[in-house]
Protein backbone atom coordinates (compact mmCIF):
# COMPACT_ATOMS: atom_id res chain seq x y z
CA UNK A 1 0.00 0.00 0.00
CA UNK A 2 1.45 3.37 -1.02
CA UNK A 3 2.64 5.84 1.57
CA UNK A 4 2.70 9.63 1.50
CA UNK A 5 6.06 10.55 0.00
CA UNK A 6 6.48 14.23 0.73
CA UNK A 7 5.07 17.15 2.66
CA UNK A 8 2.15 18.77 0.90
CA UNK A 9 -0.98 20.74 1.68
CA UNK A 10 -4.31 21.89 0.30
CA UNK A 11 -7.05 24.27 1.40
CA UNK A 12 -7.05 27.06 3.92
CA UNK A 13 -8.24 28.00 7.39
CA UNK A 14 -10.79 30.47 6.06
CA UNK A 15 -14.35 30.16 7.27
CA UNK A 16 -16.13 27.37 5.39
CA UNK A 17 -12.89 25.74 4.27
CA UNK A 18 -10.51 23.12 5.63
CA UNK A 19 -6.73 22.93 5.64
CA UNK A 20 -5.18 19.51 5.05
CA UNK A 21 -1.45 19.04 5.54
CA UNK A 22 0.15 15.67 4.78
CA UNK A 23 3.61 14.24 5.23
CA UNK A 24 5.51 10.96 5.43
CA UNK A 25 5.12 8.84 8.54
CA UNK A 26 5.57 5.21 9.51
CA UNK A 27 1.87 4.72 10.25
CA UNK A 28 -1.38 6.41 9.35
CA UNK A 29 -1.62 9.32 11.77
CA UNK A 30 -4.66 11.57 11.58
CA UNK A 31 -4.96 14.75 13.67
CA UNK A 32 -8.12 16.79 13.48
CA UNK A 33 -8.83 20.25 14.85
CA UNK A 34 -12.51 21.15 14.48
CA UNK A 35 -15.70 21.99 16.36
CA UNK A 36 -16.37 19.16 18.83
CA UNK A 37 -19.69 18.15 17.32
CA UNK A 38 -18.20 17.86 13.85
CA UNK A 39 -15.30 15.61 14.80
CA UNK A 40 -16.72 12.22 13.93
CA UNK A 41 -18.04 13.42 10.54
CA UNK A 42 -14.86 15.25 9.59
CA UNK A 43 -12.81 12.20 10.49
CA UNK A 44 -15.14 9.95 8.49
CA UNK A 45 -14.79 12.17 5.42
CA UNK A 46 -10.99 12.22 5.68
CA UNK A 47 -10.67 8.49 6.37
CA UNK A 48 -12.99 7.76 3.48
CA UNK A 49 -10.57 9.32 1.01
CA UNK A 50 -7.54 7.73 2.68
CA UNK A 51 -9.18 4.33 2.38
CA UNK A 52 -10.41 4.98 -1.17
CA UNK A 53 -6.81 5.45 -2.26
CA UNK A 54 -5.47 2.69 -0.01
CA UNK A 55 -2.94 4.96 1.64
CA UNK A 56 -0.64 2.77 3.74
CA UNK A 57 1.25 5.37 5.73
CA UNK A 58 1.55 9.08 6.31
CA UNK A 59 0.43 11.86 8.59
CA UNK A 60 -2.67 13.89 7.84
CA UNK A 61 -3.32 17.05 9.83
CA UNK A 62 -6.71 18.66 9.36
CA UNK A 63 -7.87 22.07 10.56
CA UNK A 64 -11.56 22.41 9.79
CA UNK A 65 -13.38 25.74 9.77
CA UNK A 66 -16.86 24.42 9.07
CA UNK A 67 -16.31 22.92 5.60
CA UNK A 68 -18.97 20.75 4.02
CA UNK A 69 -18.10 17.07 3.53
CA UNK A 70 -17.53 17.41 -0.25
CA UNK A 71 -14.96 20.14 0.41
CA UNK A 72 -13.20 18.02 3.05
CA UNK A 73 -13.04 15.12 0.62
CA UNK A 74 -11.73 17.32 -2.19
CA UNK A 75 -9.03 18.95 -0.06
CA UNK A 76 -7.89 15.60 1.31
CA UNK A 77 -7.63 14.18 -2.17
CA UNK A 78 -5.61 17.17 -3.42
CA UNK A 79 -3.23 17.02 -0.47
CA UNK A 80 -2.68 13.29 -0.91
CA UNK A 81 -1.97 13.68 -4.61
CA UNK A 82 0.49 16.43 -3.94
CA UNK A 83 2.01 14.20 -1.29
CA UNK A 84 2.71 11.55 -3.90
CA UNK A 85 -0.37 9.34 -3.71
CA UNK A 86 -1.98 8.54 -7.02
CA UNK A 87 -5.50 10.02 -6.94
Amino acid at each position, binding site marked *: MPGIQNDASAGSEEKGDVSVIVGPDDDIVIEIECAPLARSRVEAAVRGIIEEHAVGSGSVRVVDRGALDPIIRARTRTAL*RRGGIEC
Partner: protein
Amino acid sequence: MLMRSRLYVPGIQPKMLAAGGVYGADIVVLDLEDSVPADRKDEARDLVSESIRSMDFGRSAVFIRVNSDRETAELDMRVLTPACAGILFPKCESVDQIRFIDTVFDRMEGEMGIDNGHFKIIPIIESALGLSKAGEIALSEDRIVAITLGVEDLSSDLGMIGPDETALLFAKSTIVAAARAAGIEPLDSVFSRVDDADGLIEACRYSKSLGFSGRGAIHPNQVETIHNAFAPDEREVERARLIVEAAEAAEAKGIGAVKVDGAMVDPPVVKRAQRTIEAASAPGSVLDLRKVEADDTGEGEE
Protein backbone atom coordinates in the same frame (compact mmCIF):
# COMPACT_ATOMS: atom_id res chain seq x y z
CA MET B 1 -32.25 24.48 -22.37
CA LEU B 2 -32.79 28.15 -21.55
CA MET B 3 -29.62 30.21 -21.64
CA ARG B 4 -30.65 33.64 -20.44
CA SER B 5 -28.12 33.68 -17.61
CA ARG B 6 -24.74 32.01 -17.31
CA LEU B 7 -23.39 32.34 -13.75
CA TYR B 8 -19.64 31.85 -13.44
CA VAL B 9 -18.52 30.25 -10.19
CA PRO B 10 -14.78 30.09 -9.43
CA GLY B 11 -13.87 26.43 -9.03
CA ILE B 12 -11.34 27.36 -6.36
CA GLN B 13 -13.89 28.87 -3.96
CA PRO B 14 -15.61 26.26 -1.74
CA LYS B 15 -18.35 28.53 -0.40
CA MET B 16 -19.30 29.78 -3.84
CA LEU B 17 -19.44 26.23 -5.20
CA ALA B 18 -21.76 25.23 -2.37
CA ALA B 19 -24.13 28.10 -3.12
CA GLY B 20 -23.87 28.05 -6.91
CA GLY B 21 -27.18 26.31 -7.49
CA VAL B 22 -29.49 28.44 -5.37
CA TYR B 23 -29.76 31.48 -7.60
CA GLY B 24 -31.78 29.84 -10.33
CA ALA B 25 -29.37 30.70 -13.13
CA ASP B 26 -30.15 28.88 -16.37
CA ILE B 27 -26.52 27.81 -16.60
CA VAL B 28 -23.90 27.53 -13.86
CA VAL B 29 -20.35 27.53 -15.16
CA LEU B 30 -17.90 25.96 -12.71
CA ASP B 31 -14.71 27.63 -13.76
CA LEU B 32 -11.38 25.84 -13.97
CA GLU B 33 -9.80 28.46 -16.25
CA ASP B 34 -9.25 32.14 -15.67
CA SER B 35 -10.34 32.33 -12.02
CA VAL B 36 -7.98 29.52 -10.98
CA PRO B 37 -4.25 30.23 -10.60
CA ALA B 38 -1.99 28.00 -12.72
CA ASP B 39 -0.51 26.19 -9.72
CA ARG B 40 -3.92 25.35 -8.24
CA LYS B 41 -5.67 23.73 -11.18
CA ASP B 42 -5.58 20.30 -9.51
CA GLU B 43 -7.17 21.73 -6.39
CA ALA B 44 -9.99 23.34 -8.35
CA ARG B 45 -10.55 20.14 -10.30
CA ASP B 46 -10.97 18.18 -7.07
CA LEU B 47 -13.34 20.79 -5.61
CA VAL B 48 -15.46 20.93 -8.75
CA SER B 49 -15.51 17.15 -9.04
CA GLU B 50 -16.79 16.70 -5.49
CA SER B 51 -19.25 19.56 -5.89
CA ILE B 52 -20.77 18.08 -9.02
CA ARG B 53 -21.17 14.74 -7.31
CA SER B 54 -22.59 16.00 -4.02
CA MET B 55 -24.18 19.40 -4.34
CA ASP B 56 -27.60 20.31 -5.60
CA PHE B 57 -27.55 22.81 -8.48
CA GLY B 58 -31.33 23.09 -8.61
CA ARG B 59 -32.70 24.05 -12.01
CA SER B 60 -29.30 25.18 -13.37
CA ALA B 61 -27.59 23.26 -16.17
CA VAL B 62 -24.02 22.60 -15.02
CA PHE B 63 -21.17 23.39 -17.39
CA ILE B 64 -17.44 23.46 -16.69
CA ARG B 65 -15.18 26.05 -18.28
CA VAL B 66 -12.14 23.95 -19.08
CA ASN B 67 -8.64 25.16 -19.85
CA SER B 68 -7.77 25.69 -23.48
CA ASP B 69 -4.64 23.55 -23.81
CA ARG B 70 -5.59 20.03 -24.83
CA GLU B 71 -3.87 18.12 -22.05
CA THR B 72 -5.43 20.16 -19.26
CA ALA B 73 -8.74 20.35 -21.08
CA GLU B 74 -9.01 16.57 -21.14
CA LEU B 75 -8.23 16.32 -17.43
CA ASP B 76 -10.90 18.96 -16.81
CA MET B 77 -13.44 17.20 -19.00
CA ARG B 78 -12.96 13.97 -17.08
CA VAL B 79 -14.51 15.69 -14.06
CA LEU B 80 -17.94 15.68 -15.73
CA THR B 81 -20.68 13.28 -14.72
CA PRO B 82 -23.83 12.41 -16.69
CA ALA B 83 -25.66 14.98 -14.56
CA CYS B 84 -23.60 17.71 -16.21
CA ALA B 85 -24.52 19.45 -19.44
CA GLY B 86 -21.09 20.04 -20.95
CA ILE B 87 -18.23 22.49 -21.23
CA LEU B 88 -17.38 26.01 -22.19
CA PHE B 89 -14.26 25.93 -24.34
CA PRO B 90 -12.25 29.16 -24.10
CA LYS B 91 -9.97 30.78 -26.66
CA CYS B 92 -11.61 28.72 -29.39
CA GLU B 93 -9.94 29.39 -32.74
CA SER B 94 -10.44 26.32 -34.90
CA VAL B 95 -12.70 23.50 -35.89
CA ASP B 96 -9.82 21.15 -34.99
CA GLN B 97 -10.18 22.05 -31.35
CA ILE B 98 -13.87 21.22 -31.51
CA ARG B 99 -13.12 17.88 -33.18
CA PHE B 100 -10.68 17.07 -30.39
CA ILE B 101 -13.30 17.79 -27.72
CA ASP B 102 -15.85 15.76 -29.61
CA THR B 103 -13.48 12.77 -29.69
CA VAL B 104 -12.89 12.95 -25.95
CA PHE B 105 -16.61 13.24 -25.32
CA ASP B 106 -17.36 10.26 -27.59
CA ARG B 107 -14.98 8.17 -25.47
CA MET B 108 -16.36 9.44 -22.17
CA GLU B 109 -19.98 8.88 -23.16
CA GLY B 110 -19.11 5.33 -24.21
CA GLU B 111 -17.38 4.66 -20.89
CA MET B 112 -20.31 6.14 -18.95
CA GLY B 113 -22.92 4.30 -20.99
CA ILE B 114 -24.85 7.43 -21.87
CA ASP B 115 -26.21 8.70 -25.18
CA ASN B 116 -23.67 9.87 -27.68
CA GLY B 117 -24.03 13.62 -27.96
CA HIS B 118 -25.08 14.03 -24.33
CA PHE B 119 -22.31 16.49 -23.47
CA LYS B 120 -22.62 19.91 -25.12
CA ILE B 121 -20.07 22.51 -26.09
CA ILE B 122 -20.20 26.30 -25.89
CA PRO B 123 -17.12 27.78 -27.60
CA ILE B 124 -15.84 31.13 -26.36
CA ILE B 125 -14.35 33.39 -29.03
CA GLU B 126 -11.54 35.46 -27.55
CA SER B 127 -9.23 36.33 -30.43
CA ALA B 128 -9.18 37.86 -33.89
CA LEU B 129 -8.51 34.43 -35.40
CA GLY B 130 -11.38 32.94 -33.45
CA LEU B 131 -13.69 35.72 -34.58
CA SER B 132 -12.75 35.13 -38.20
CA LYS B 133 -13.58 31.43 -37.78
CA ALA B 134 -16.73 31.91 -35.71
CA GLY B 135 -19.04 30.87 -38.53
CA GLU B 136 -17.32 27.56 -39.29
CA ILE B 137 -16.83 26.81 -35.60
CA ALA B 138 -20.54 27.31 -34.94
CA LEU B 139 -21.48 25.00 -37.78
CA SER B 140 -18.87 22.33 -37.05
CA GLU B 141 -20.52 20.08 -34.49
CA ASP B 142 -24.00 19.08 -33.34
CA ARG B 143 -22.80 19.23 -29.75
CA ILE B 144 -22.42 23.00 -30.02
CA VAL B 145 -25.54 24.57 -28.51
CA ALA B 146 -24.38 28.17 -28.20
CA ILE B 147 -21.43 30.45 -28.86
CA THR B 148 -20.17 33.37 -26.84
CA LEU B 149 -17.30 35.83 -26.67
CA GLY B 150 -14.76 36.85 -24.07
CA VAL B 151 -14.66 40.62 -24.43
CA GLU B 152 -11.51 41.32 -22.45
CA ASP B 153 -9.16 39.00 -24.35
CA LEU B 154 -10.87 39.61 -27.66
CA SER B 155 -10.70 43.38 -27.48
CA SER B 156 -7.07 43.17 -26.42
CA ASP B 157 -6.26 40.91 -29.37
CA LEU B 158 -8.10 43.28 -31.69
CA GLY B 159 -6.00 46.16 -30.40
CA MET B 160 -9.01 48.05 -29.08
CA ILE B 161 -8.77 50.85 -26.59
CA GLY B 162 -11.64 51.11 -24.16
CA PRO B 163 -13.63 49.53 -25.67
CA ASP B 164 -17.24 50.70 -25.69
CA GLU B 165 -20.27 48.98 -27.19
CA THR B 166 -19.84 50.80 -30.49
CA ALA B 167 -16.34 49.42 -30.89
CA LEU B 168 -17.57 45.92 -30.03
CA LEU B 169 -20.53 46.03 -32.40
CA PHE B 170 -18.84 44.22 -35.27
CA ALA B 171 -17.49 41.45 -33.05
CA LYS B 172 -20.83 40.96 -31.29
CA SER B 173 -22.81 41.00 -34.52
CA THR B 174 -20.42 38.44 -35.98
CA ILE B 175 -21.13 36.11 -33.07
CA VAL B 176 -24.88 36.60 -33.42
CA ALA B 177 -24.78 35.95 -37.14
CA ALA B 178 -22.58 32.85 -36.71
CA ALA B 179 -24.93 31.48 -34.09
CA ARG B 180 -28.15 32.12 -35.95
CA ALA B 181 -26.76 30.68 -39.16
CA ALA B 182 -25.95 27.50 -37.27
CA GLY B 183 -29.29 27.45 -35.44
CA ILE B 184 -27.64 27.82 -32.02
CA GLU B 185 -27.88 30.50 -29.34
CA PRO B 186 -25.66 33.59 -29.32
CA LEU B 187 -24.72 34.54 -25.76
CA ASP B 188 -23.26 37.90 -24.80
CA SER B 189 -20.33 38.29 -22.45
CA VAL B 190 -20.36 39.19 -18.77
CA PHE B 191 -21.11 42.68 -17.40
CA SER B 192 -18.28 43.35 -15.02
CA ARG B 193 -19.63 46.33 -13.03
CA VAL B 194 -21.25 44.26 -10.29
CA ASP B 195 -22.67 47.20 -8.34
CA ASP B 196 -24.18 48.90 -11.38
CA ALA B 197 -27.68 47.37 -11.55
CA ASP B 198 -29.01 50.04 -13.91
CA GLY B 199 -26.00 49.60 -16.16
CA LEU B 200 -26.67 45.87 -16.33
CA ILE B 201 -30.31 46.44 -17.31
CA GLU B 202 -29.23 48.78 -20.09
CA ALA B 203 -26.50 46.40 -21.22
CA CYS B 204 -28.98 43.51 -21.38
CA ARG B 205 -31.46 45.59 -23.36
CA TYR B 206 -28.71 46.35 -25.83
CA SER B 207 -27.63 42.68 -26.00
CA LYS B 208 -31.20 41.65 -26.70
CA SER B 209 -31.54 44.27 -29.42
CA LEU B 210 -28.46 42.84 -31.15
CA GLY B 211 -30.04 39.39 -31.13
CA PHE B 212 -28.34 37.75 -28.15
CA SER B 213 -30.31 35.24 -26.06
CA GLY B 214 -28.54 35.86 -22.79
CA ARG B 215 -25.59 37.25 -20.85
CA GLY B 216 -22.93 36.03 -18.50
CA ALA B 217 -23.11 36.87 -14.80
CA ILE B 218 -20.13 37.16 -12.51
CA HIS B 219 -22.19 37.77 -9.38
CA PRO B 220 -25.39 36.05 -8.23
CA ASN B 221 -27.09 39.42 -7.78
CA GLN B 222 -27.01 39.83 -11.56
CA VAL B 223 -29.01 36.69 -12.36
CA GLU B 224 -32.53 37.96 -11.74
CA THR B 225 -31.86 41.22 -13.56
CA ILE B 226 -30.65 39.29 -16.59
CA HIS B 227 -33.71 37.03 -16.53
CA ASN B 228 -36.05 39.96 -16.40
CA ALA B 229 -34.22 41.79 -19.16
CA PHE B 230 -34.32 38.79 -21.49
CA ALA B 231 -37.91 37.94 -20.66
CA PRO B 232 -40.02 38.17 -23.79
CA ASP B 233 -42.67 40.86 -23.84
CA GLU B 234 -46.34 40.12 -24.43
CA ARG B 235 -46.10 40.74 -28.15
CA GLU B 236 -43.21 38.28 -28.51
CA VAL B 237 -45.01 35.65 -26.42
CA GLU B 238 -48.18 36.01 -28.47
CA ARG B 239 -46.29 35.66 -31.74
CA ALA B 240 -44.40 32.67 -30.36
CA ARG B 241 -47.65 31.02 -29.32
CA LEU B 242 -49.07 31.40 -32.82
CA ILE B 243 -45.95 29.85 -34.34
CA VAL B 244 -45.86 26.91 -31.94
CA GLU B 245 -49.58 26.23 -32.39
CA ALA B 246 -49.18 26.32 -36.15
CA ALA B 247 -46.21 23.95 -35.95
CA GLU B 248 -48.14 21.51 -33.75
CA ALA B 249 -51.12 21.67 -36.08
CA ALA B 250 -48.93 21.02 -39.10
CA GLU B 251 -47.27 18.08 -37.36
CA ALA B 252 -50.65 16.61 -36.45
CA LYS B 253 -51.71 16.77 -40.07
CA GLY B 254 -48.42 15.27 -41.20
CA ILE B 255 -47.53 18.43 -43.10
CA GLY B 256 -43.89 19.53 -43.12
CA ALA B 257 -44.43 23.19 -43.92
CA VAL B 258 -45.53 25.58 -41.18
CA LYS B 259 -47.43 28.74 -42.10
CA VAL B 260 -48.25 31.69 -39.91
CA ASP B 261 -50.16 34.72 -41.21
CA GLY B 262 -49.74 33.40 -44.71
CA ALA B 263 -45.94 33.22 -44.51
CA MET B 264 -43.73 30.10 -44.28
CA VAL B 265 -41.91 29.59 -41.00
CA ASP B 266 -38.62 27.69 -40.92
CA PRO B 267 -37.69 25.08 -38.27
CA PRO B 268 -35.16 27.38 -36.51
CA VAL B 269 -37.91 29.96 -36.11
CA VAL B 270 -40.20 27.34 -34.58
CA LYS B 271 -37.39 26.35 -32.23
CA ARG B 272 -36.92 29.97 -31.19
CA ALA B 273 -40.62 30.35 -30.61
CA GLN B 274 -40.60 27.30 -28.32
CA ARG B 275 -37.73 28.84 -26.41
CA THR B 276 -39.62 32.14 -26.10
CA ILE B 277 -42.56 30.38 -24.50
CA GLU B 278 -40.20 28.50 -22.19
CA ALA B 279 -38.58 31.80 -21.19
CA ALA B 280 -41.96 33.41 -20.60
CA SER B 281 -42.92 30.80 -18.06
CA ALA B 282 -39.48 30.29 -16.48
CA PRO B 283 -38.71 31.83 -13.09
CA GLY B 284 -37.60 35.43 -13.49
CA SER B 285 -37.20 37.65 -10.51
CA VAL B 286 -38.24 36.27 -7.11
CA LEU B 287 -40.05 39.49 -6.36
CA ASP B 288 -41.06 40.30 -9.93
CA LEU B 289 -40.39 43.95 -9.21
CA ARG B 290 -39.65 44.86 -12.79
CA LYS B 291 -42.79 43.12 -13.92
CA VAL B 292 -44.71 45.09 -11.32
CA GLU B 293 -43.33 48.35 -12.65
CA ALA B 294 -43.96 47.47 -16.29
CA ASP B 295 -47.51 46.39 -15.51
CA ASP B 296 -48.47 49.17 -13.17
CA THR B 297 -46.75 52.35 -14.05
CA GLY B 298 -44.61 52.12 -17.15
CA GLU B 299 -42.25 54.41 -15.28
CA GLY B 300 -38.51 53.94 -15.04
CA GLU B 301 -36.88 51.55 -12.58
CA GLU B 302 -35.41 52.74 -9.29
